[in-house]
């Protein structure tokens, strides 16, 4: 791993050490912005499958 300066700051707030029942206290903060951003992405894109791979198994079927 590289030094701290080379870390990418991501879109996801780190909530792992915040007790669930205290999340609401952060309601008007960066958390609310992150939630709004994520919901906006969901509204725009929906939840499409990231992959859907369909192949025909060539060993089983008869071609006719």
């Amino acid at each position, binding site marked *: 791993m590289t030094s701290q300066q080379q870390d990418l700051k991501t879109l996801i707030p780190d909530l792992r050490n915040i007790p669930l029942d205290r999340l609401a206290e952060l309601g008007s903060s960066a*958390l609310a912005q992150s939630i709004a951003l994520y919901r906006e992405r969901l509204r725009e894109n929906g939840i499409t499958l990231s992959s859907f791979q369909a192949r025909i198994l060539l060993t089983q079927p008869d071609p006719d």
Partner: protein
Amino acid sequence: MITHHLLPEAAFNALAEGGGDQAAIQLLHHAQLSKHLMLLQAIAGASAGTDRGSAAFRAGFELLARIQATDPGAGAWLLGLPHLGGWAHDCLIRLDQGSPTDLGYFACLAAAAAIRVGVPFELDVPVRHGRIRLPGLGSLLVAAPSAWTGLCCDGEQVTAGDHFAADRRLLAPDDGLAGAPQEWSGTPAIRAVADGLAWNVLLETGDSYLDRYTLPISTGLSPAELQRWRNHLRSAWDVLVRYHRWAAEPMVAGISVIVPLTPHSDTDLVSATTPAAFGAIATSWPPDQVTLAETLVHEFQHVKLCGLLDMVPLLESGGEKVYAPWRQDPRPVGGLLQGVYAHLGIMRFWLAQQHAETGQDDVLRAQASLARWGAAIGPAVRTLQETGCLTQAGLRFVRLLGARAGDEASGAVPDEAREIAGEAALDHWLTWQIRHVATDAAEVADLADAYRRGERFPAGAQPRTWLQEETRKVDSAMRTRLLNMRYLAAARYRELCADGALPLSEPDRLLIARRSGEAVRAYRALIADCADPQPDAWIGLALALHQLPASPLQATFATRLALLFDVHLCLGGRVDPLDLAGWLT
């Protein structure tokens, strides 16, 4: 003050190159835990109602807070479940749409986590199809015909309504050992161990929030079918650990659920992932352990990229649809990025697998697969770079991806495998062009007039083209199948060729027999003699020409096939296609 998850540059680079070790996957996983907390907080804001579902959600929320305080690992287990991701995404979308939501499911999720570690609770939970679902553990059959029932745990004993009581430890996933109460149906748990590396995965067949992959989930597996899945996954794990440890090690941290799918036909192999359920891979029954191993590598690539995309935007919205060498339909830029990334993993898989195979046909399959996907990634990366839709991070990601693919592709593949792969790839590209590339009718008419008048091809003429879902109907599925069968099912291919009963046209038969000159003449005659459009024959002619020594016509057919076809059609057919192609060249 809230900080954000950080992603070290080294982890980003490793992921971009198609890899990423367990530590990198843990970073993606940790971000998913926070994402799920974000989603829960958003749902909590809409659960103030007095209805039973809202009350159950709030009780589940309070229980999860207690679990986090008592046993943080159990809280993380729950937040990492793909079941929770699937439910939370559906819930948010339905809230945004103003549709009814299944808030009560969250009480089931929290109850599952509490039962797992013995945190006491008393909740009302929904009953669906006579069962209480405890995601990640299994489901409990309840006698009372009610939509809701009480579920309690005193830390040791679980009771449901007035009818069921059992030690909480018995309400566990089904690892194949007996001893669970008869009302309990544990989610099948599969433990695969190879060379000291263990992978624990659930085979989820009952959760409606993981029944989200277009095709239906395979419910009601018989004990024999379940055992077949156990054996198959363990065999595939052997392959992965022995030859693809770069993929197997991070998979331990990244994949916790397999969802078996029921395909439309027994001859289809379908697999899928969704960004809503990080950690889950859906697949129908694969024919052998190598194919299952390849499928797991393929889908794991998508899981990794979805996790990364949640953290770091690689794409701006918009952009035209483009060609993807593995899909029949034009793809949005995001779809192409997913496909390129998956095929980098596939390429790395076959690069190693070619040395693991011993049978001649299996070696050919590995080498031709390597050649085909290795050659496809470079052009697809350039397409991505030219879309203008990549962010700075996206440009860097794709540059690293392309460089890694270039390094891997530089290894030698025998000529036979390269030629077979090249022909299958060319057939795909030609078919795609005929199917989807539309040309400007007025400009095509001008060119046809110029040809009719015996003029030279107008210098610099570039008729406008665009993509459509189905511009022309192509019906060359059998020829395409045979071209792919040459390396994917070589024994079957030889068998079919030997018995001479292939349901092919005469020109196609000559092409498959590699009687290339005769095939060119036969396609040429078919196109010139027939007044009706012959899109399949144009593709066949292009393929046959490419079997012959190099000529300038090959490039014209490979890159301007739709234009050739349309000008020929505008001329009313009955024109020698090679003469027209020479004029266009």
